[in-house]
């Protein structure tokens, strides 16, 4: 019976949590339980009975269609995007590439000063003349900017690709079979995710240790310590960014975490207001400072704005939540 219950729960999980849907879910469960008990009483095996009951469940899209006819259809169009199974697969593939690209870009940015220092260190091994060293110092900026240029290129190319999907600030709707499939995938992904984040944290803790070791072993006037530090951090951050992007992709497709319908809908207005309120606070701060010379006290505007804004965001989110329930 648990299998049946879990199945129905998983099917209903992306439907609105209204009392109407709750009642419908309970009715269907009672119905399936009756059917299951009858099959068992007829002498059919547990597995076969569950299989029959599940196969006679039907397609939840029928309910969604029926439900949408009565609900505000415009609301659904404005905030939500329905994705087919192939679109979901396509998006997942894109997000994997996107994750690798962005993580690589960020790591390149972190590594760029390390590259500059490596260039100098290697050059100093070759030559002793101080006039050549001056030129090498100047030339060493080239690998720095080269790395940053590559990273920026990656950000632009993949940022544009991401935009094509046009899923930002939209609730993603998927059918129940795709949802069940993604649910399973996410479950399999989670242990790997935990390991990656843990490794990232360990690398970031090892980074200053490597710095200290290099200073102790090679003397405090050497660049290798910084190169090691940045190298460790770059790998750690790569893990954070790549796995973080994959995780948020699952959350987005399954409407979990920061991507619940309330949060996605609320973020539209909240982002707009943030775009007005924070520059305004800065303007007030600068005016208070320059005109009234109140630099000592004017900074208070920032914590106040921050707290009021946080209060507004959570209030607005809960209003939307209650609205959706009714």
């Amino acid at each position, binding site marked *: 019976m648990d299998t049946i219950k879990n199945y129905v729960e998983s099917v209903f999980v992306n439907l609105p949590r209204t009392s109407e849907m709750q009642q419908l879910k309970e009715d269907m469960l009672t*119905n399936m339980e*009756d059917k299951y008990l*009858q099959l068992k009483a007829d002498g059919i095996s547990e597995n076969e009975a569950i299989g029959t009951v599940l196969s*006679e469940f*039907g397609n939840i899209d*029928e*309910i969604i269609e*029926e439900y949408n006819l009565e609900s505000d259809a415009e609301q659904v169009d404005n905030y939500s995007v329905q994705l087919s199974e192939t679109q979901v697969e396509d998006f997942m593939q894109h997000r994997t590439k996107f994750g690798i690209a962005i993580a690589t870009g960020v790591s390149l940015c972190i590594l760029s000063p390390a590259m500059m220092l490596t260039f100098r260190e290697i050059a100093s091994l070759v030559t002793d003349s101080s006039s050549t060293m001056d030129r090498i110092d100047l030339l060493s900026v080239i690998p720095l900017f080269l790395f940053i240029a590559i990273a920026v290129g990656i950000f632009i190319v993949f940022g544009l690709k991401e935009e094509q999907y046009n899923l930002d600030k939209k609730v993603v709707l998927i059918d129940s079979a795709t949802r069940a499939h993604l649910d399973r995938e996410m479950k399999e992904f989670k242990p790997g995710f935990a390991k990656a984040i843990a490794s990232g944290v360990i690398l970031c803790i090892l980074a200053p240790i490597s710095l200290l070791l290099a200073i102790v072993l090679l003397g405090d006037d050497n660049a290798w310590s910084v190169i090691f530090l940045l190298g460790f951090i770059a790998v750690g951050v790569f893990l954070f960014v790549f796995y973080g992007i994959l995780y948020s992709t699952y959350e987005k497709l399954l409407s979990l975490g920061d991507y619940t319908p309330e949060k996605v809908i609320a973020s539209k207005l909240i982002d707009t207001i943030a775009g007005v309120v924070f520059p305004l606070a800065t303007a007030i701060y600068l005016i208070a400072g320059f005109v009234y010379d109140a630099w000592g006290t004017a900074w208070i505007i920032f914590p106040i704005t921050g707290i009021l804004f946080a209060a507004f965001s959570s209030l607005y989110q809960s209003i939307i939540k209650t609205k959706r329930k009714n």
Partner: protein
Amino acid sequence: MISSDVMRGFNSLILLSILMKEDSYGYQISNTIKVLTDGKYIMKETTLYSAFNRLEKSELIESYSSTETNGKPRTYYRITDLGRQTYHEKVSEWLDTKNIISQFIEEE
């Protein structure tokens, strides 16, 4: 088993005809359909409940909660006067349809 596409237009009629006899609830209704058709037509849960919802919204049936069978709380459905009227209209519509279609089938 008959495809649910073909049966789509008749689901309301089937449910109304069952409720014409007596008030009933989900499992009893789907079981009646299964038994009467000798397992040839099994109405899926989602089809059944979409149909209930449609019929209730158009006031052809009404629901009430009862613990009549085995003491478990169940949603029962009762046909309304409008429902009875609609049933009779649908029956004559079906007889007409059957007549028209069979003209073609017999000509073959």
